[in-house]
């Protein structure tokens, strides 16, 4: 949904979602089985798993990474994202 906001900021402006390191991922699909928000999607082709719906990802949640045996999932730096949200909120309130 394009009108989703998080902390007053349009969700699509917050780059919080997992990144799959395909050199590590063994396509066990544990993360996809785990995530109730349908961030991941399985594909027929290559790669067999993609981050299809990044804005479905709950900002600050990285619970799926704990299910990942080969440690193939990474998230952005939290303090940087918080700073970005603060900045976007200020810009919004200033005009």
């Amino acid at each position, binding site marked *: 949904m394009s009108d989703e906001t*998080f*902390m007053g900021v349009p969700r699509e402006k917050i780059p919080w979602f997992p990144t799959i390191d395909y050199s590590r991922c063994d396509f066990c699909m544990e993360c996809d089985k*785990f995530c*109730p928000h349908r961030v991941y999607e399985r594909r027929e082709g290559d790669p067999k798993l993609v981050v299809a719906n990044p804005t479905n990802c*709950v*900002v*600050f*949640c*990285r*619970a799926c990474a*704990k299910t990942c045996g080969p440690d193939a999932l990474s998230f952005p730096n*939290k*303090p940087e994202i*918080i700073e970005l*949200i*603060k900045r976007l909120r200020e810009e919004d309130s200033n005009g």
Partner: protein
Amino acid sequence: MAERHAVLPCNGLDKPVGPLAREIALALVEACQGELICPVLYNNLPARYAKALELPLIVIDGCGTRCASKLATEHDLKARRKIQVTDALKEIGESAGEALTPDPERLALCRQLAERLLAAPAEESAVDAEAAFAEPVEYATATHDKFIFRIPTQGYLFNENHCWAHIAGSRARVGISDYMQQELGDLTFCELPQVGTEVEQFGEIGSVESVKAVSDIISPVSGRVVAVNTAVVEAPELINEDPYVKGWVAEVELRDLESDRALLLDGEAYLALVRQKAAEYRP
């Protein structure tokens, strides 16, 4: 005459604000016939001040490094009143200037700040906090079909990760909201943080697991974990039954509530968010 206090300033002699912290300390001690605590000697020989510290304590930090507060925390001292001089000056449109020796105007400001500090209402001690956490909570509700979500109207702050902080003095208890516990369903497991952990705002402060999902608990506030609720490990259903009081997860000594607050929702704003979510709610 103001109540007698022990006064613990920072040392700070190498910065312009340090001597101001010292002047405020001297003004306080004079105004309340209190006891001055040297942070350097206290650090080396705390027993020297055992008697003085039977008095309620005022902690004076010069700058954001908060050395005096940290020293107090290390020795498990509870501050009745606190001031951070750099911020206090900023609030009244002043600054510490460049000089290591305060000018007469700044000396006058120090006396003003000291008077204001003694007149200010005291922060609640940990014992008072315990009582505040136990007080009955009033709720507003958001309903959708047969689902009813309760939200405390007073004393709680929320983040959009559906976690709350119940503020009492310099401490807060943290837990998950009624909305989140209903979304997760019957909880089967609760993982607590370690006591002593420093947690950032929006950092993880434990997790909860239900038959449906696992969810991190995202702390609305920054600070140090000083207590955890072991009862919810034994009985995670406490969080389902009473998410805002008996189902608390961790207690935090707050680091910077004013800064944290800017990114949080009060009960009313969170109620509006839950109403919006409830309209889309599919358990």
